[in-house]
């Protein structure tokens, strides 16, 4: 009889516990995702602006990023800047600010196909005086075409050999962004 009592008591406890659950479930908008990479290039001489963009509004969902790139002028020097956005937030969150704030852990690398006549120079620096790459200069050579890849590396070794000159070979770390743009210089 005693065991029956205990069993019923336990069952009661169990039922209480089962009912105390709330059914509200909150939508999560991902905080950390970078959905959009926008490169703005300004030709100081003519004030002309060119843009490259990679935009992936479903994050790690099945859709591929949408890639757009303007054609560049030959033998021109562009002031470049990069904007990282999380457009899942409303209004869109500017992630560039975070990247710059944690500049010592981040670096943007520009990888051009050998066929593409471009030269990049970093124009910014982190607390250790290593480049970040959010601000840069892009100088084009003769008319040519090829892929340009922009990589944002997180937590790599920014003191590694060649890193400050823009060579990612020895940097390691993990890739936060990798976008490849087909570029034509005309």
């Amino acid at each position, binding site marked *: 009889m005693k065991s029956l009592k205990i069993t019923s008591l*336990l069952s009661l406890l169990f039922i209480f516990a089962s009912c105390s659950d709330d059914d509200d479930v909150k939508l999560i908008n991902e905080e950390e995702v970078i959905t959009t990479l926008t490169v703005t290039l300004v030709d100081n001489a003519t004030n002309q602006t060119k843009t490259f963009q990679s935009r992936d509004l479903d994050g790690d969902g099945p859709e591929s990023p949408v890639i757009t790139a303007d054609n560049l002028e030959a033998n021109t020097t562009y002031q470049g800047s990069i904007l990282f956005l999380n457009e899942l937030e409303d209004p869109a969150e500017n992630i560039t600010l975070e*990247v710059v*704030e944690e500049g010592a852990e981040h670096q943007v690398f520009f990888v051009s196909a050998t066929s593409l006549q471009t030269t990049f120079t970093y124009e910014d620096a982190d607390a250790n005086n290593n480049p970040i790459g959010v601000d840069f200069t892009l100088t084009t050579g003769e008319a040519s075409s090829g892929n340009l890849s922009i990589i944002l590396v997180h937590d790599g070794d920014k003191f590694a050999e060649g890193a400050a000159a823009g060579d990612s070979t020895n940097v390691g770390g993990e890739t936060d962004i990798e976008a490849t743009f087909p570029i034509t210089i005309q």
Partner: protein
Amino acid sequence: MRFFVWVSFLWLTTFTLQAQDCTFQLSGKVIDIHDSSALPYAIIKIEGSTKYAEADAKGNYIFKNLCAGNYTFEISHVSCEKRSVKFELTSDKVFNFKLEHHIDELNEVLLTGKLYQNKILSNSIQELNQKQISNLSNLSFGEALAQINGVSTLSTGTSISKPIIQGMHSSRVLIINNNVRMQDQQWGVDHAPNLDINSAANIQVIKGSAALQYGGDAVGGVIVSTPQKAPLTDTIFGSTIANINSNGRGGNLSTSLLKSTKKGWYFKTQASLKRHGDLEAPDYVLSNTGVQENNISFGFGLNKIDSGFNAYYSLFSTEIGILRASHIGNLRDLENSINSLVPSFIDGFNYQINSPKQQVNHHLVKLDYFKKIKNLGKLKAQYAFQFNRRKEFDVRRGERSEKAALDLELTTHQVLTQLEVRQFDRLALDIGVETSFQNNYANPETGVRRLIPDYDMFTLGSFVTSTYNLNKLITIDAGMRYDFTHIDALKFYRVSRWEERGYAIDFADIILEDFGTQLLTNPVFNFHNFSSSLGALFKLGEETEIRSNFSLATRNPNPSELFSDGLHHSIANIELGDLRLKQEQSYKVNLSLSQAFKNLKFEINPYFNAIDNFMVLEPSGIETTIRGAFPVFEYRQTQAQLWGIDAEASYQFNKQTSLQGQIAYIYAEDVSLNQPIINMPPLNTRLELVHNQPNWNNLSLSVSHEFFAKQERFPDLDFSTLILNTETGELEPTLINISESPAAFQLFHVTAEMPFKFNQTDLRVRLQVQNIFNTSYRNYLNRQRYYADEMGRNIQLQIQFNY
């Protein structure tokens, strides 16, 4: 007339006297009701007479010159409850008396391990006893179990290990802690069991699903961990074990204390602490592989012969660093890691545990009560509460590394009522009903989409298991179980994923709300499962035993298989669950032959497991995100067949020296696609030579050798995709070699151990060198084999006090 009566009377008397020839013989054994083992020196008295027999050391008894008639026998044994048995004797008879062995001989029982019995006799069972557990006290639960033949570990790095039983792991292996089925998010391959090895006094591995009282879904097997039981005497005892390790520069400390009284009251407590910093491979530091663990448990209760209760609480709390180099961004990073021989991130030795890391707390509260019911058996009721909080931290931007990327709270209530019918001489019958309620809550504060959604789960199961002693030679066990499971989940899907999965067509009616880019859905599942088991134990003489078992297990898809939907940084893949998955069903035949010759003992355990609707995770394509390209892994259901054999033998050269060997092999085939199944343990062997030197204060020395062959049977899941070559700037088609297994390896270990006896205490000192030759190797069953070598040499000093 009177004369006639007298004559008849005389005649009758003569007849009776003639019939009472009194030449019958009654013989047999006195055995333990639980496991049919012999009970030596039991006394069997014939009620109403002075006749009695005493069983010998092997439990054998004999009565000679008995007359025909009805007899009542009273059987008694020092450590058992008295029992009487009635039957009629009409001829010579062989009969086994059964007694229920009680736990008032703790010391003896601890030595023999007999305290922790198992009811399934037909399934191959192996165990770790208290001595072995003490030796392994420094290891995690999963690593320690790998000592058992046929058990391997699936690991994620150096500190997360899950047991694999005969090729199966995670949701296919049930872990029972103190008679409670662990609900610790066991579905995840990188979720180690939340159980402290030091909290166990005995661990059994049942290599099959025959133990239906624990669940019907043990496709691989069941691991039963039992804490220290209290003796029925006035005593207090305890033990403390300290381990110091050179590799990781840390160690652990575990201590336990138990006080009990003759009246049946007891109180026990146990606690352990573990700390180590970065582990070291032979050539480099494995950065961020430190571990912290704090565990405590206590219990009290009253155990009388006819009733009793127990209360138990345990907390398992751990923080585990994950190899920094294993957190990668995209396929190019993965390809770099595979091709580079060293991890992409190596730092100096450090005790700090940074992201990526896991923090897990597991609470278990258990209350149980039992009462013996005359002429029926034992009624048991048990309530268990488990709360599992798992936080996983990723390398994140903007100070978010401090914020968990995954934060799950899993709460489970279980009620089990069981009736153990023991009134029949030959038949032991268990009937039980188990019900549970589970809630999973995924904390939205993470700012990362939920990997596992919020859900409620209700289960109701009932089972009947039985053991029947057919005769001296054969014991049969059989069981059946039915389980009902109801799952009610609230899951957000990205609209793009919802459509890509084809759910828009199949599951349109489960959408609750449309948030634009995401949909809130309400998947509901009801599963009805049957499982069963039939087997027999043949005792062909004292030294030969054959066990054979056939069992059917049915397993529901787990939350990860149903709902997974997102990126895993640890292996750079996108993992997708499937709402359409069905239950998988396993048909397993398990045979075991154990035989002892003079100095040679061996056991051979072949098995065959055929699994319908086997759920397997496989790459199905590539998806590109702004981070770059990732392989997509999807669940597929197929027909699987596993053939395997576990064998072990030991040979005693003389009183001082013995040799033990183990070998395990498994052949696993996806019969639908005619290809091997992924992540199966390769052929492995273990050999240990032990030498004891009594005149050197009982110094014991051992040398052991472990060999793991290269797993030649793996499915070719390599795929080719465009990867950026950072030298040329071109996207080049590249083959990603994720399938290839690492090379074979062998390891040598040496151990020296010496006991010291004092008045009240025992001291044991043990020095071990693991991986003496500091061999560099990688293990196929480590999910981080792409990134780094396994741990190098370790020197361990263990000191144990028993008091």
